[in-house]
């Protein structure tokens, strides 16, 4: 672990990378027209003045542009990555140094993130970003996957119970780390998380997995503050998930392995928006794509697009590349990997690392792990065949490549920024529930990206608008429209 230990309030791998990060941020700003327009639109009104935003979201170049948009709108920000592998160290350094600072005199925002954190380090970072100098904590969370929200909720729950339980053998290694952290904070300040939870006005959540957790907490009545589900904005899930993964999956596989994709059999587990993008990109490279699904509608969609739809069991010996996109757990088991072809490539592009059973793989008797390079491991089974695991089963587009391209992230992050403004400035209008952004804001996000692509929009005439019963200026579709 090469992270600097700094006296200042941040922790990144190497501040000297800041100049490189700043150059890439400058390039990314041009590719993120939505965020840059929002900066202009709200430069004078400063709607986030007074907001203390704790962000837990992949610390990439694109995220740096988001962070600096939030600060440009008046917010104070503390940041961590939401995955141990997804930080781009030059991006983290540039954010810590800030546009006006130098590595010797950093003037950016407190960021706690580096590529290749241990689980203990990861949760330490989250804890640091949630600790606000001069306040109980943040008053807003910007979450991706829900880890920051989870820590606040679990902390509050155990503080109410007065005790943090010991991990059980069924618990994941990571949950054990969380329990350890909470046990420590309970000793230090038995009201720490309760106070943090009370100071938070709301959370905006980036991804499917985190949204799923939020809806569960709403059902259970345990959600402590209102939430905006950014994931289900059309300009997020139908763009980031679909087009972003279409771009970055193949990028990740290529950087990790440089294998010829044409002619291979690729198995995509899950045919949601992410799976659809993955299947299209691999087919575009000349792979024959097989899809596995549990949902009959998605399965039928895959079949009608000409993909073979099979069960993983039936095609496990046939695939050269396996990608999980489900948002569910235990999709590819150690037993599956034991039956795969020699040097089959296994990777996950779903948010969490539980889609592939890495723990089971590790426990396989006689298995040997051969590290090829960072985020690429060959696992050798006792019978001599090997599989190639990308990013230890964590999302490979970020682990092995650089995640989604700026343009697509501009759509997602413009939604995030609008959602932060919405929750912070109109907090009274929101209850402890999960909301999606109204349609007109979704359309606004799309509109902000059209000019950059040279798109010329056709305008409805008032007669045409009346004929289909929509305002001339939108919104154009009912909320239930599926795009």
């Amino acid at each position, binding site marked *: 672990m090469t992270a600097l230990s700094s006296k200042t309030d941040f922790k990144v791998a190497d501040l000297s990378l800041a100049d490189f990060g700043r150059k890439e941020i400058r390039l990314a700003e041009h590719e993120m027209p939505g965020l840059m327009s929002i900066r202009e639109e709200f430069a004078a009104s400063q709607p986030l003045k007074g907001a203390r935003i704790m962000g837990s979201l992949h610390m990439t170049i694109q995220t740096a542009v988001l962070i600096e948009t939030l600060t440009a709108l008046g917010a104070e920000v503390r940041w961590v990555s939401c995955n141990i592998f997804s930080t781009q160290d030059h991006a983290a350094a540039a954010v810590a140094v800030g546009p006006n600072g130098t590595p010797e005199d950093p003037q950016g925002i407190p960021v706690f993130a580096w590529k290749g954190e241990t689980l203990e380090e990861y949760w330490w970072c989250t804890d640091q970003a949630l600790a606000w100098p001069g306040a109980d904590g943040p008053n807003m969370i910007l979450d991706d996957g829900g880890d920051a929200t989870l820590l606040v909720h679990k902390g509050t729950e155990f503080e109410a119970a007065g005790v943090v339980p010991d991990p059980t053998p069924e618990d994941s290694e990571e949950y054990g780390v969380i329990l350890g952290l909470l046990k420590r904070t309970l000793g230090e300040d038995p009201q720490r998380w309760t106070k943090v939870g009370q100071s938070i006005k709301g959370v905006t959540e980036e991804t499917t997995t985190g949204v799923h957790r939020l809806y569960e907490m709403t059902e259970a009545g345990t959600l402590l503050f209102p939430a905006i589900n950014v994931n289900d904005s059309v300009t997020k899930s139908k763009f980031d998930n679909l087009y972003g993964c279409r771009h970055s999956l193949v990028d990740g596989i290529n950087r990790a392995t440089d294998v*010829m994709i*044409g*002619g291979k059999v690729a198995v995509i587990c899950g045919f949601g928006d992410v799976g659809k993008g993955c299947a299209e990109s691999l*087919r575009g*490279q*000349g*792979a*024959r*794509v097989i899809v596995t699904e549990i949902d009959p509608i998605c399965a*039928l969609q895959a*079949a*009608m*697009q*000409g*993909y*073979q739809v099979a069960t993983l069991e039936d095609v496990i010996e046939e695939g050269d590349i396996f990608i999980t996109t489900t948002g569910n757990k235990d999709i590819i088991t150690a037993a599956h990997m034991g039956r795969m072809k020699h040097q089959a490539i296994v990777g996950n592009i779903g948010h969490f690392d539980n889609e592939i059973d890495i723990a089971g793989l590790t426990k396989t008797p006689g298995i040997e792990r051969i590290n090829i390079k960072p985020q690429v491991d060959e696992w050798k089974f006792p019978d001599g065949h090997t599989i190639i695991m990308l990013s230890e089963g964590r999302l490979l587009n970020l682990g092995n490549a650089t995640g989604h391209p700026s343009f697509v992230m501009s759509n997602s992050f413009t939604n995030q920024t609008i959602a932060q403004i919405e929750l912070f400035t109109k907090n009274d209008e929101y209850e402890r529930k999960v909301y999606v952004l109204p349609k007109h804001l979704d359309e606004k996000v799309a509109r902000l990206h059209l000019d950059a692509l040279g798109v010329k929009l056709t305008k409805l005439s008032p007669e045409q608008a009346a004929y289909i019963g929509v305002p001339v200026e939108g919104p154009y579709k009912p909320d239930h429209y599926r795009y």
Partner: protein
Amino acid sequence: MAKTKPASDVADLGLAEAGDARIAWADAQMPVLRSIRERFVGERPFEGLRVGMCLHVTTETANLARTLIAGGAEVALCAANPLDTQDDVAAALVECHGAAVHAIHGEDMATYYRHIEAVLDTRPQLTMDDGADLVSTIHGRRTELLAGGEIIGGTEETTSGVVRLRALEAAGQLGFPIVAVNDARTKRLFDNRYGTGQSALDGILRATNMLFAGRVIVVFGYGWCGQGIALRAKGAGAQVVVCEVDPVRALEAKLEGYEVLPGVAAAAKGDVLITATGNRDVVRREHYEAMRDGAVLCNAGHFDVECDLAALRELAVERRQVRPHVEQHVLADGRRINLLAEGRVVNLAAAEGNPAAVMDMSFANQALAAEHLVKTAGTLAPQVHGVPPELDEEVARLTLAALDVEIDALTDAQRAYLTTWDQGT
């Protein structure tokens, strides 16, 4: 235009008006052939020449015949397949364009061969074949036509015919030069791939009205036709499986992303099986025994030999015509195999053949190849020749012009760079 109408045998001359309207429709989509025809009207390269044509009697062929007639030729035409004749076109060629036509849709084999003989009875000086039926009949039963030395040469339209003619040449028996129009780049890269790719699927759709999306479509043969069929089937949402004997072709298919399987394994999973090989018995007893209930079987190759129909009939306990062009074979275990168009070339038998726009390129090659044979009469060896590259490029140029496509030209410096050995670094 012709003074007296030559002897013909068509289904119904009363269909001529309807046929001529359709010929005009196709002509509008054949700008290249039209420009050649306009030139021929002035130059009359075929003045008084007898041309025997054995081609599918379609609107596009009619426009080729018109082009030759405009150049001064006397044309006699028969069909290259008993099921492909469009009777209205045959009538229009006789009534409106002065061709002798011997072709009736659905004629039996005896009539089919009688019609070939009738064309040969006109003692053609140029032959134009699609499948080499004229040339092989001349070299078989009608060798007296060779003896006179009147035949200048012939052209051949399709892969299957070229294969037969090369065999004839290899046996040392070919009596006059042949230009293999099929081998022109502007023919096989377009007609075979994009023409057949579209029209073979069109034939299946018209015969069955089935949905391709989600189905497994097996393509036997990954030559130009097979590539086109696979490409368009994939575009329609089908899952495409390719069967090949040539390892290079098979590898191409594999790296294009298709599943490549041996024929019997493919037959076991196909909803639709299409042959496009130019070979015989590609689908045979062992395949029928593996096929799924309800499988659709058809052929996009030139001849009806690609599926072993005798074996299919032997296996069938019952045969019934369930729709036009769909004959259902019920096997002993109840499985049903739906054979389209009696195993004949499905795009012509169940649809309208290749679209006019793509036939325009093929037939422009035919017209220019015929002109080339006449201009070089007596100088070409009795072998199978390619289309001269300048003709090939001329067809592409004319087609681009018709599509309003402009392209770049090499600079002098670039041309020099490509033709010298000492530049390069």
